[in-house]
């Protein structure tokens, strides 16, 4: 089978106003099966790895994969894990992650993974098998209307009825998934279509009539923003995942340094500016630093970059940054003034907008403001009480940060350990914290770490998970062992669903309703060993560093470290539900 040689649209945004419609290229007369077209199209999109799980309607596709070793297929244990792995791969590499699953249950198992990626704007391609077209709608075996099920959590979706359309659909899907505000795109593949022979058609020029994401910010608005920055007395940058995953970390750092304006990031924005940068105030929001939350509350100019004013960031909306004028740079027009009204909106790709803004800004005289921030930083640092007899969870994360020099890709699950990681890991590089920020998906961490390690074998990958969340997708340990994926898993084991327990302690008089896990947790060391992974249990603070050092040396597969930590440690500072950012509580008293 000869591969079609086509001119790929190098820069799809080259001619956004072109009226010329792309026309199909038919470079060869030979027909191919739908399965062959699919795999060729994936390879032509530059896909090197897919995560998948076979099934009845995928037989034709898996037969092609059997003959195509140039496409690496990672067999996962559960489709949810596969989807998270593709998501982790996408976040770590910047390319779209691809997951291939069968119809019915295979497809519905991806739903949590798709929703996770959708909330965090991660480019994913979900390929779902479907029953033969003639049987669709008849409640056939393993049939599910997956397009219907996933409609609210996909950026777009396709049902491919005509095999000749498949090449174009795959091409469009990658374009839609990776441009504008990225997101998951699902392609439903009826079995008979995949088996049929047809032509592999591609568009010469990518042109989708209803889809023209704005790349360049409006210049007039950028001038207005620069003017506001130059006049500000108490400005602060509020930076989100758009900078991190929009590859604009360098551009942002340049702007921050030229203007000498302090910066706070969201969870998703961590790493966009080095954690140890003198102008970095740390994370803001529900578990943000005192300095960051006060800076946002007291500032006279809030410059939001690639962030979306999520409720975990803003706290009570009518108490959020009330004294400030607001600039908002975002690629998604719908994000602007959705939750918080902004004064100077700039719709565009932060990577394009930031350099233009940098050119126009000066260094406003804000020394009094910087002094005030320094005094807040000094008076209210992140802190915890170290203990010699019991491992404090924050201590483990500090040590992981030290031993990896802040250079690792750190993948978290969801809960207390996630917030401690955000607070205590010193990120040096962008695309380094992979975490389910929007959806808050427990079970995300480990499979996503597997995907990240597959995509970035050049970087150390640490997964930090809780004992609760890890068990939701722990079967992917088998995947990591099988493919010798060197993920280091640190289980922050406090025998509780810690974040819920913290709320029960603070707001429900310690009625720990169904959050205690000790009596149901497995022996994580034995569990890991049964999969063939190396595992350690760490019970004393002095064992933490030596174990981490040992784990760093293991490069031919996963390492599981079961850190038995203080049971009732809490994440502080904390903005209680319904409170404003400046109403945070710093400790139990």
């Amino acid at each position, binding site marked *: 089978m000869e591969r079609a040689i086509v001119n790929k649209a190098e820069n799809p945004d080259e001619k956004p106003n072109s009226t010329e419609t792309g026309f199909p290229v038919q470079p060869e007369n030979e027909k191919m099966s739908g399965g062959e077209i699919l795999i060729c199209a994936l390879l032509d999109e530059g896909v090197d790895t897919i995560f998948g799980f076979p099934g009845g309607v995928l037989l034709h596709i898996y037969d092609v994969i059997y003959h195509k070793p140039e496409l690496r297929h990672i067999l996962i244990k559960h489709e949810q894990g596969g989807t998270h792995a593709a998501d982790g791969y996408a976040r770590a590499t910047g390319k779209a992650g691809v997951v291939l699953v069968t119809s019915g249950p295979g497809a519905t198992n991806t739903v949590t993974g798709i929703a996770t990626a959708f909330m965090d704007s991660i480019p994913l391609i979900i390929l779902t098998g479907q029953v033969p077209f003639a049987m669709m709608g008849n409640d056939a075996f393993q049939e599910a209307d997956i*397009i*219907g099920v996933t*409609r*609210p959590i996909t*950026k*777009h*979706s*396709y*049902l491919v009825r005509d095999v000749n359309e498949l090449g174009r659909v795959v091409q469009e899907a990658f374009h*839609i998934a990776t441009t504008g505000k990225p997101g998951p795109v699902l392609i439903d593949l009826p079995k008979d279509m995949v088996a049929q022979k047809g032509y592999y058609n591609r568009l010469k020029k990518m042109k*989708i*009539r*209803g*889809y023209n994401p704005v790349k360049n910010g409006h210049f007039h608005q950028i001038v207005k923003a620069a003017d506001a920055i130059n006049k500000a007395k108490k400005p602060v940058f509020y930076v989100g995942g758009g900078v991190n995953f929009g590859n604009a970390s360098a551009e942002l750092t340049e702007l921050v340094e030229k203007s000498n304006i302090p910066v706070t990031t969201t969870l998703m924005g961590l790493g966009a500016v080095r954690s140890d940068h003198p102008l970095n105030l740390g994370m803001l929001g529900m578990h943000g630093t005192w300095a960051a939350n006060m800076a946002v509350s007291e500032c006279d100019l809030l410059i939001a970059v690639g962030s979306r004013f999520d409720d975990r960031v803003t706290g009570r909306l009518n108490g959020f940054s009330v004294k400030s004028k607001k600039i908002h740079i975002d690629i*998604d*027009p*719908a994000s602007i*003034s*959705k939750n918080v*009204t902004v004064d100077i909106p700039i719709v565009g790709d932060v990577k394009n907008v930031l350099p233009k803004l940098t050119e126009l800004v000066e260094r406003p005289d804000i020394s009094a403001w910087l002094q005030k921030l320094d005094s807040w930083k000094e008076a209210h640092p992140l802190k915890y009480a170290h203990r010699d007899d019991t491992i404090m969870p924050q201590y483990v994360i500090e040590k992981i940060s030290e031993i990896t020099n802040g250079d690792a890709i750190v993948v978290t699950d969801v809960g207390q350990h996630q917030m401690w990681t955000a607070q205590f890991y010193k990120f040096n590089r962008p695309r380094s914290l992979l975490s389910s920020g929007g959806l808050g998906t427990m079970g995300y961490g480990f499979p996503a770490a597997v995907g990240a390690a597959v995509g970035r074998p050049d970087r150390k990958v640490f997964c930090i998970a809780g004992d609760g969340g890890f068990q939701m997708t722990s079967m992917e340990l088998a995947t990591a062992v099988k493919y010798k994926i060197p993920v280091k898993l640190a289980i922050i084991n406090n025998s509780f669903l810690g974040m819920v327990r913290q709320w029960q302690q603070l707001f429900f008089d310690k009625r720990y309703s169904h959050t205690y896990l000790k009596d149901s947790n497995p022996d994580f060391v034995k569990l890991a060993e049964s999969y063939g992974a190396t595992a350690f249990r760490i019970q004393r603070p002095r064992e933490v560093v030596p174990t981490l050092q040992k784990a760093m040396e293991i490069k031919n597969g996963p390492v599981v470290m079961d850190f038995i930590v203080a049971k009732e440690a809490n994440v502080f500072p904390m903005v209680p539900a319904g409170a404003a950012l400046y109403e945070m509580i710093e400790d139990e008293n």
Partner: protein
Amino acid sequence: MKHTISVTFEHSFNTLSRIAGLFSGRGFNIDSISLGTAEKEGLARMTLTTRGDERIIEQITKQLNKLINIIKVVDLTFEPFVERELALIKVSASPSVRMEIMQIVSIFRAKIIDISPKSLTIELTGSADKVNASISMLKPFGIIETARTGSVALRREFQGKT
């Protein structure tokens, strides 16, 4: 306040449910919705009327615009536009009240398109307000069934200066 929004989109099996899903998923109101083919092949135009404050309407138009198959979204509310709705109204009508009903029909410039010993079916076009007004005038006679299309609307082309 009430808004009339015109949406042009590529007609595919997925688009209509994506639009409907947007409204249900984000809790937006739809008062009426009507659609049919537009001037070009493969394109459809939908007119929907909805209610909400400025922020909600802005979200509705932005979220609609985000859908890949949607080509154009225009909020006609603050522009001059023409709007029509078609209603079929079946009224119970014994011979004794027929004349009275026919008078109302003629006032509203409607048409009678079906007649039986006990009923009249009336075809009426006009703005939603006109349709509502005629229905309330006919109510005392006993309305058996109504079928309404919902508003369809187009921007009015200006003649001369504003």
